[in-house]
């Protein structure tokens, strides 16, 4: 089955690397994947989003305007994408920057105060790893142990010094999901 996940937020929030991490993790697990960022390199600021497709079979279309699941980093992104999520889908919201509840009743909504969590954890730049940890722990879209084992492969080269920090942040998210979110 083809699952499509939307990640959306401000330009500087690590939106794209969140999606990319997800893609790498799924690929490491042997899935077919594609990753489509909205690219705004000619623009500073603004919003960013990406779509990750994860499938057991060959991917026909890397695009969708009705993702099954969405990770939303800020209010404008919620306003823009809420309606597009498939009924019954999952919606993860950064409640630090989203000051309203979602209107949709047919979604599984998960919230976490990302900014605060990141600052508490002492790594304000790792908010995206936190949300990933929570999201993956909750949905099981990829095998979480597998993900934890492949950190070293994903953050290779210049970024290898960030492995520990990212792993820590990821676990904060996992922990948050396990303690605060319940499967409905």
């Amino acid at each position, binding site marked *: 089955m083809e699952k499509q996940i939307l990640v959306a937020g401000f330009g500087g929030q690590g939106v794209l690397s969140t999606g990319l991490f997800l893609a790498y993790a799924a*690929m490491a697990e042997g899935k077919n994947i*594609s990753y*489509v960022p909205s*690219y705004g390199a*000619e623009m500073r600021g603004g919003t960013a989003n990406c779509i990750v497709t994860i499938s057991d079979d060959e991917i*026909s*279309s890397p*695009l*969708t305007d009705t993702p099954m699941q969405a990770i939303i980093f800020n209010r404008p992104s919620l306003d823009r994408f809420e309606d597009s999520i498939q009924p019954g889908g999952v919606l993860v919201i950064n409640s630090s920057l989203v000051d309203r509840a979602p209107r949709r009743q047919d979604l599984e909504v998960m919230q976490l105060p990302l900014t605060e969590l990141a600052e508490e954890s002492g790594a304000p730049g790792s908010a995206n790893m936190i949300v990933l940890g929570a999201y993956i722990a909750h949905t099981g879209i990829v095998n979480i142990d597998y993900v934890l084992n492949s950190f070293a492969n994903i953050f290779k080269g210049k970024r290898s010094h960030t492995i520990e920090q990212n792993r820590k942040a990821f676990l904060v998210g996992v922990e948050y999901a396990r303690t605060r979110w319940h499967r409905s």
Partner: protein
Amino acid sequence: MAKVLMKGNEALGEGAVIAGCRYFFGYPITPQSEVAEYLARRLPQVEGVFLQAESELAAINMVYGGAAAGARVMTGSSGPGISLKQEGISFIAEAELPCVIANISRGGPGLGGIQPAQSDYFQACKGGGHGDYHLMVLAPSSVQEMMDFALLAFDLADKYRTPVMIMSEGMLGQMMEPVEVREPVTEQYAKPWATNGCAGRKPNIVNTLHLGVEELEERNRHLFRKYAEIQAREKRAETMLTKDAELVVVAFGLLSRVVKKAVIEARKKGIKVGLVRPVTLWPFPDEHIRECLETAKMFLSIEINMGQMIEDVRLAVNGQAPVEFYGRIGVVPSPREVEEAIMAAAEKGGLV
């Protein structure tokens, strides 16, 4: 071989390296810049040269020089930058210099936007520059094809001594997919015409000026004999479910994958719909389209522009069936949207 997750632009760059290209002359522009950036890192590793030209004009003329020297050379740009290269492209086509030009395209006209578009179809296929000439134009639909078509493009360029354009939506340059990295090719073409010093032979001349009336005409006819040969041999298209299709959708590039999914969905709803995906935009695979006429009652050209390829579809169909159009700008329509467009066309054509 394990697949590697790559950006389309990077796969294109790596494909060029595998094809033996050691020279890239380009100028940054979104959404093409990663081709340049990748090769800026990569080429020095293989003793190649990456040079950021002062402009697209300079870049295409550096390509002219590098190709004349006998090397495999590439440049890339998008939208406005491709327009600036038109004079040079016309010169390169006339001088019969092989090279590869990437157009990782954006929406226009003017500065437009960096959103994905296929609005440069006319420019690429009908000749954006002055005079009678053609480019070969390849339209990849996946990151893997970004790499594979780079290999193919260099081969075609050398074989026919012609500039080859790889044209993709910007999104395809930006998105990532796992890629099987190809083996280096070994076939290289002899280039006795190259201007690389006349030791032991008569001087070579690379020239596009033909002041004599007969000379100019003969030169044009020579080029068109070559183009006829290319048309006879190199038309490429992918077809899906066209055997019994009453409605044939024509779409290229990344968009064609979206259309594929929509076609499959529409089939489920009982529409006899198929897809022709031109792989070469020039030469345009008109025969693939005409073959569909056995069952086709209607064609639908879907493009990310205001309607350009549709003219070539119409020319191929030549009045034997209606040709409809569905277009967006700056946006790759979703499978669902395409499916709706297919259903609407089918309804209009009484094919439901």
